[in-house]
């Protein structure tokens, strides 16, 4: 059921290529027709030569019986038909390639667009690798095999019909003989495919297991060495390796038997036709030309049959891939929004208020229970608390990555009445996991901000402390950087520079300095203090020393604010914060 629906959806993508597809269909029918019909001329040629050979038995010289002009005429006709068939096949394949790639392109575009509209929840609950493989591998499989298999199936179907018609018009007795072997070859095909599929699935399963096994060990090499566990790992791997070998062997043997078996059956049909044809010929029921044509027809009949077998296999893979692609395309999107209110980037003050905010990723398990707090414009707010207290969740809600119960107000405007885009442009954000993409250093810092002048860029680079780094890179700011080439600290500094260039009225720093050593942190801290000056900023930090100068400290535990106030006030209280603060110095 699922496969059919995936096919139906894919057909929708074919709609705009209807004209090209019609051409493809016509061309493939024309090509098949020419190929099949050419056989009748070959039949005439054979009959002509055969008849001549018969006459020659009376002792006439061949040169008198055989008119080379007749042969040349037939020969040129055939040549023309072959050329025509080749041209049809090529143009059809040419068009099909274009259609395939255009459909793949559109699928990829649609997925990319979809990814912009999916809620954050989707990304937090799906593995990146999985989504990635849907966008690339699966789309590719769909484009390559889905259409190819549909096209092949169509052509093969057309060919079978035309050949059958031609066979019946040529000689019905021999046609029935030829068909006698069809059920046999179908039976073999069916049996072997069914059995081998089981083994191919097992092979894929064992391969997956082996991959998982190796991946785990490969990412724990240090640990293996430190624990003297190399030999044990090899033993575990070898056990799985042997299972894979076994499954592969069985699958290979079965598929290795299939092909010769079907060949044998077709040979069987071949001989049967020769015998029946011979008997008929003796009674004058057929001619040598007809027999020769028939031998070609059998080939033309059997090759699309075995093609259909392969296509069925390909089609299954492709529709599984299409299913995965459409799963992404049909995920629930973030609800469309209409802005009931808008905050202008230029005139925003930066008052933020949380009113009875409630939230849980799983509605059963609330992470934030009842959170209320008022932040005045320009304040530096620190959010502290033990791991799992809901600090990052609060940021998720503030940025509207997730929708919460209760209200969050900016300058008195409920953020739910604004567009998400509007909310997000009010904030710059630096996260614990520093993210850089493959592109030049400059692209990474400027990012999607438009009209950034050089002066501002240099200032940000200097303030973030990567001026030095820029100059050690081979092509300076135009050096292509990527994830693996930089240290965690360097990446973090780049993202900080990015936030500085972005220059939004409010700021969120979620453990922004945890990957940076403490001396660099000091440098950044200074830059940050500059950046937070006059802006409402939210800072989440492990090291409490870094947030001592915050205007407001919110102490979170189990999703509730347990305390709030300044550093001194909270210490004087001798409560939860006091304990937290002193724990870090305890021996």
């Amino acid at each position, binding site marked *: 059921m699922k496969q059919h629906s995936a096919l139906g959806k894919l057909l929708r993508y074919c709609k705009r290529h209807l004209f090209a597809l019609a051409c493809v269909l016509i061309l493939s029918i024309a090509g098949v027709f020419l190929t099949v019909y050419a056989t009748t001329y*070959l039949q005439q040629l054979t009959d002509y030569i055969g008849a001549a050979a018969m006459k020659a038995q009376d002792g006439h010289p061949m040169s008198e019986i055989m008119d080379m002009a007749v042969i040349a005429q037939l020969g040129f006709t055939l040549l023309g038909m072959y050329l025509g068939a080749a041209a049809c096949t090529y143009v059809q394949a040419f068009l099909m390639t274009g259609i395939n790639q255009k459909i793949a392109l559109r699928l990829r575009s649609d997925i990319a667009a979809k990814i912009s509209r999916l809620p*954050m929840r989707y990304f937090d609950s799906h593995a990146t690798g999985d989504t990635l493989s849907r966008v690339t591998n699966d789309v590719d499989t769909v484009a390559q095999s889905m259409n190819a298999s549909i096209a092949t199936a169509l052509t093969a179907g057309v060919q079978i019909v035309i050949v059958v018609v031609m066979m019946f018009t040529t000689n019905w007795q021999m046609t029935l003989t030829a068909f006698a072997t069809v059920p046999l070859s179908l039976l073999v095909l069916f049996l072997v495919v069914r059995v081998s599929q089981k083994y191919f699935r097992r092979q894929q399963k064992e391969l997956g297991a082996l991959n998982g096994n190796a991946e785990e060990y490969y990412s724990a090499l240090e640990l293996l060495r430190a624990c003297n566990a190399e030999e044990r790992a090899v033993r575990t791997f070898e056990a799985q390796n042997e299972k894979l070998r076994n499954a592969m062997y069985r699958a290979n043997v079965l598929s*290795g038997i299939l092909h010769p078996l079907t060949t044998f059956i077709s040979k069987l049909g071949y001989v049967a036709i020769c015998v029946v044809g011979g008997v008929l010929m003796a009674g004058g029921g057929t001619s040598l030309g007809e027999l020769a044509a028939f031998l070609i027809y059998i080939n033309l009949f059997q090759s699309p049959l075995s093609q259909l077998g392969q296509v069925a296999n390909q089609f299954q893979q492709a529709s599984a891939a299409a299913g995965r692609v459409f799963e992404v395309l049909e995920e629930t999107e973030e609800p469309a929004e209409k802005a009931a209110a808008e905050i202008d980037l230029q005139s925003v003050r930066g008052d933020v208020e949380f009113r009875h905010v409630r939230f849980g990723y799983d509605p059963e398990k609330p992470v934030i229970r009842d959170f209320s707090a008022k932040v005045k414009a320009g304040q530096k707010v620190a959010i502290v608390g033990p791991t799992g207290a809901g600090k990052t969740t609060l940021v998720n809600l503030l940025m509207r990555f997730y929708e919460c119960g209760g209200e969050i107000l900016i300058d008195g405007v409920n953020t739910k009445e604004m567009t998400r885009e509007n909310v997000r442009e009010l904030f710059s954000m630096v996260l614990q996991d520093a993210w850089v993409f493959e592109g030049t250093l400059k692209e990474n810092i400027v990012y999607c901000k438009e009209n950034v002048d050089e002066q501002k860029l240099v200032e940000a680079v200097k303030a973030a402390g990567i001026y030095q780094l820029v100059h050690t890179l081979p092509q300076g700011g135009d050096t292509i950087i990527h994830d693996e080439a930089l240290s965690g600290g360097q990446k973090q500094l780049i993202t900080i520079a990015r936030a500085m260039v972005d220059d939004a009225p409010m700021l969120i720093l979620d453990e922004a300095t945890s990957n940076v050593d403490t001396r660099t942190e000091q440098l950044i801290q200074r830059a940050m203090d500059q950046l937070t000056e006059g802006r409402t900023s939210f800072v989440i930090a492990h090291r409490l020393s870094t947030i001592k100068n915050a205007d407001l400290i919110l102490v979170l535990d189990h999703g509730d604010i347990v305390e709030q106030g300044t550093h001194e006030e909270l210490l004087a209280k001798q409560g939860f914060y006091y304990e937290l603060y002193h724990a*870090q110095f305890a021996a």
Partner: protein
Amino acid sequence: MFRLFRYLRGREIAMFAALLVFLVAQIFCDVTMPTYTAEIVAKMQQGADAASILLTGGIMLAFAAGSIAATIAESILSARISTRLGRRLRGEVFAHVVNFSDKDAGSFSTGSLLTRTTNDVQQVVSAMVLGLRLGVGAPLMAAMAIIRIAQTSGELTLVTGVAVVILLAGIMAILMIVLPRFKRIQKLTDRLNGTMRDTLTGIRVVRAYNAEDFQRGRFERASRDFAKNNVFTGRVMAAMSPLMQLVYSGLTLAIYWLGCFIIVRDNDAAFFPEMFSFTQLAAQVVTAFMVLVMLFNLLPRAQVSAKRILEVLNKQSDILDPASPQMYACDGSIVFEDAAVGYGGKPVLSGLTFRVEAGQTLAVVGGTGVGKTTLLKLILRFLDAEQGSVRIGGRDVREITQKDLRASLGYAPQKSVLLSGTIRQNLAFADPTLSDETLSEAAKIACADEFIAEKGGLSAEVAQGGRNFSGGQKQRLSIARAVAKKPKIVLFDDSFSALDFATDARVRRNLSEQLPDVTKVIVAQRISTVRDADVIVVLDGGTAVGVGTHETLLKTCNVYREIAQSQLSEEELAV
């Protein structure tokens, strides 16, 4: 690629010899069959009876059966050989990887190692077996078919030759146009994947910066370039199949046509049945050459895979056990004497001199990238000192086996890795014989007992990569694993960073109270974590700029004081 042949064992070579015998038999059958076609046609022409035709048909079928039986035998043998070889190569690659030295492991990404272990091996093995089978079979087939044709007619041999030349020239031309583009495909695929991966891994940032359209634009560009390249190669490659079809049909026609000339010229009507068998033989010749071309197409890809496999197999660890290792009874001491280490000639750390006695705590502090982890690697002998000496437990690490050395060390790496299985398996990773009691004790020391109980005890499942545990929990399990084996020396590489301060302090208190005789080495960023250490080594600029206790270092070491000041308040510094 041929260097990988040495991984074939005697039995496989014997199987291969058997395969070749079957191959020759199969080809003999295939090439003989058309002769009987000619005979049947001749018999029909003469109006022979059904029984006679049936007899010839029966003989032909017997040859077909022979060919099929031989093919099946070949398939079974080649499946045997290829799966055995595949298994061996995978095993070899895996064993090499797990025995990589630290330096070698760093030069490959996990993903690339995985590809080498599975895909690359598969590519190479199938190319090797297919290559041997077809590489021998196709030329043999062509040769035998041509000989049969040549026996009767030189002219038809020539026509067949011309067809082969046309076919090869056409295929070559197609490949010449397409090959450079094929090479680009990999790059474009990487770019396509890369931009999408960037978007997915940075989705929070993308959203925060309203950069959805920016990311989409990058992806669209990559996607269009990818499609453009694919359209081009696809369209050129599309010529392949009509070309083959045309050559094939054209050759049949040419044989008929030329056959007529020969019949007329030689006045030989008996040549007519021969023509039938020639069309089939000629088809076999053409097919054989097509197979060869396909093979040559397959080889470069396999070559690349083989190179990638050999890259792994040729790595030889430079960390070697001594020829005659000393007995080792670890006394828990650590002594560095002017030790220095570097990567590729560039010194990373030098001038390391310090000493820690059994039961003491050694702390290593310093900025990112100054070589704190490198120092631990010297202790573990993941790296060898290029100068000076590293003496662990009373012996120079180069005098004892790596196994003995590491058996005495417990190690919690910077990245807390958990393996799928149970908590028990993870904690007892260094020594599967450890009792549950010992493991529970270790868990208690690491403050991991509470959440282990919550998850359902030591038998609780650990998902791949430890996904069902938080960062802090993983770290505590990693600490528990390091102490469970009751090592003489235990090393923590920034293992407390994900713990909140209270838990951090509790774990450290447990360590000093419960494991008083165990030497502890702690790499940390937090001054609070290291201030009570007996020896603190401060790394900066590739060397130890300070060695001493918290108090002395505050007075004598500028770098240490700076770090401390950034984290502690004045009054705390005064303590």
